[in-house]
């Protein structure tokens, strides 16, 4: 590419194609708004001097610099269509050479913005399932080249994969209803969704729009005045008997509770009314909503993990919710696909089985974490607490006795850690990984081992000393982290999972067959 480069030469250095030079112009024009601030700075800088001719010169310099750097970027950008992959090399000083195997390209998108269209150019994006979302973009190439690239990628992939488009669906006969919620179930869910958010919203509104009100919302005196106008006096209020005050407080409290339940039920009905999850040949299809009906399809093979959750109260009635963790691209609106907001465990396992995730059947060997892990966490609290106490004692001259109450914080933390330890379980069987955590909101995560993307054993300084480790599994759309394992257990689990993972390729598990 450039003769100035030293060192070993990359395989594609001599070959490869440049982007279309007119793209420089398009990028320059569409990048002009970004130059607004530098331009303003240049103009203001020049205004200070006496020579007014400096202003256009400064503007010209800023524009020329921008154009120059865009030209450099263009000069140092090459793409190469190889036998097995597409390669992109870029960077002025920091050089990056990216290789995207054809097997991994999920989609090729061609985009033409108005300006590019006038020049017959288009932007090509190669999308893979990469977790960070930044794949490869060619801006810009001619439309012919774009079509050629797309056709090429499709033909290379043709033998391997099937197109990923989610087809528009009719009400097919063979759709089996997996889960549906009637009005009663939605109402129950609404009761569990008790929420006082409406007060926050109202408060926020009154803050934002109080200029629209003819009076000051937060003016307490005005409210008192209003009350006095209608015959209530603050002094009389003070004079009300104890029983009367209690009644008033009880009334206020009851109405608060009522509003909390009512808003929970209302919001739930708006969102979940007519909830129906069906299994179609193309995957799960979910319809719900009262006024805005949503209809979302998720291909079964995209399910990466299942999350079964329950709360402290709903657990007593056996209610659980089921969510599916899926590939990152699916999750623009919701981070997880809600498959059942309120269901019994039997229903939950029936749905998850349809996604290829089995219920825990006893041989998953759920284990407790090592207590030492939580003790270490607790020990980390002690030094800051002691320092804070010492600081208050020495610099603020506080007496020692009340400071000892600060130690209560330690007791509270210990209780929380104990609850966490008591409920935490991890385990695996031949096919799946299990992780249960949470003493207030209980959460069980299940994932097939073949869906694991990476495995990391991590040890902090203290954990290392005591032979503890945590095991983090990268999953598309989520993370599963096992903590408080003896190092030997972590190694054994990693070995077992690696054997499962290595046997199946990513493209194979995430394509529909």
């Amino acid at each position: 590419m450039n003769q100035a480069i030293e060192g070993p030469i990359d395989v594609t250095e001599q070959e490869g194609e440049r982007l279309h030079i007119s793209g420089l112009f398009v990028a320059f024009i569409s990048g002009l708004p970004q130059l607004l601030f530098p331009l303003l700075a240049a103009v203001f800088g020049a205004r200070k001097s006496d020579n007014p001719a400096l202003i256009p010169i400064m503007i010209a310099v800023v524009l020329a610099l921008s154009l120059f750097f865009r030209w450099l970027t263009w000069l140092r950008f090459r793409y190469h269509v190889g036998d097995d992959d597409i390669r992109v090399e870029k960077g002025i000083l920091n050089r990056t050479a990216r290789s995207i195997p054809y097997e991994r390209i999920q989609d090729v998108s061609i985009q033409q913005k108005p300006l590019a269209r006038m020049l017959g150019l288009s932007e090509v994006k190669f999308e893979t399932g990469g977790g960070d979302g930044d794949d490869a973009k060619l801006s810009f190439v001619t439309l012919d080249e774009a079509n050629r690239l797309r056709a090429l990628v499709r033909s290379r992939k043709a033998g391997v994969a099937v197109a990923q488009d989610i087809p528009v669906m009719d009400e097919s006969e063979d759709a089996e209803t997996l889960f549906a919620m009637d009005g009663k179930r939605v109402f129950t869910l609404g009761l569990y969704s008790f929420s006082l958010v409406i007060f926050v919203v109202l408060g926020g509104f009154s803050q934002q729009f109080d200029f629209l009100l003819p009076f000051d919302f937060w003016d307490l005196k005005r409210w008192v005045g209003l009350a006095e106008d209608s015959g209530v006096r603050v002094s009389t209020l003070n004079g009300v008997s104890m029983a009367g005050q209690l009644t008033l407080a009880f009334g206020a409290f009851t109405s608060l509770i009522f509003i909390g339940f009512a808003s929970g039920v209302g919001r739930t009905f708006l969102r979940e009314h007519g909830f129906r999850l069906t299994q179609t040949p193309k995957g799960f299809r979910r319809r719900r909503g009262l006024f805005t009906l949503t209809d979302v399809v998720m291909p079964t093979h995209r399910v990466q993990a299942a999350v079964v959750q329950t709360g402290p109260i709903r657990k007593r009635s056996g209610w659980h919710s089921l969510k599916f963790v899926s590939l990152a691209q699916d999750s623009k609106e919701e981070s997880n696909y809600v498959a059942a907001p309120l269901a019994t465990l039997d229903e939950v396992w029936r749905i998850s089985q349809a996604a290829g995730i089995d219920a825990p059947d006893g041989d998953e060997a759920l284990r407790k974490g090592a207590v030492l892990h939580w003790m270490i966490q607790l020990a980390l609290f002690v030094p800051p607490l002691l320092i804070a106490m010492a600081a208050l004692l020495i610099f603020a001259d506080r007496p020692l006795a009340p400071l000892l109450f600060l130690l209560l914080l330690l007791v509270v933390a210990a209780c929380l850690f104990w609850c966490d330890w008591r409920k935490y379980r991890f385990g695996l069987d031949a096919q799946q990984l299990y992780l249960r955590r949470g003493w207030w909101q209980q959460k069980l995560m299940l994932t097939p081992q073949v869906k694991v993307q990476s495995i990391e054993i991590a040890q902090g300084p203290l954990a290392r000393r005591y032979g503890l480790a945590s095991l983090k599994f990268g999953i598309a759309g989520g993370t599963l982290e096992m903590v408080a394992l003896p190092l030997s257990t972590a190694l054994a689990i990693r070995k077992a999972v690696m054997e499962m993972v290595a046997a199946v390729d990513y493209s194979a598990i995430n394509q529909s067959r």
Partner: protein
Amino acid sequence: MIDDNLPELTPLDPAFITTSRIATALGLLPFVVGAGVLEFAQLLPPGSFLVPMLLVYAFVAYTVPARKYRHWGYDMGMGRLRVVRGYMFYRDTFVPFGRIQHIDVDQGPIDRRYGLATLTVHTAGNHNSTVTLPGLAHADALAMREAIRAAIRQELL
């Protein structure tokens, strides 16, 4: 400490110590300049800013990179890339070839001077979506990329 069935780790290219020293030294230079300015203002007895600053600077820019180097290691084979790093905060990451989405080979200006490169593999996972391995000889990095790419292709056939 780590079980014996695993092959021994390959250390990074020794030039990594040098490049990392240069990068740290350049990155921390503003602090030294700042200490010099404070020294110049003569707020405290002479040397009370510059001397401790220079000691810390020498330690971080000279000794730490050598230690960092000792705790990096990688291993490729058995269908996966293994990257080990960190002493205080130890991380041992496995990325199966079958889960790699795309592969980057990066080279900064300092790296280029010493013929080094950084290999970055991208997976679809949210955790560890990019796994980075710096301080490889450029030719090695390219060879590793080819090997991974070939492995991805092969596994599908």
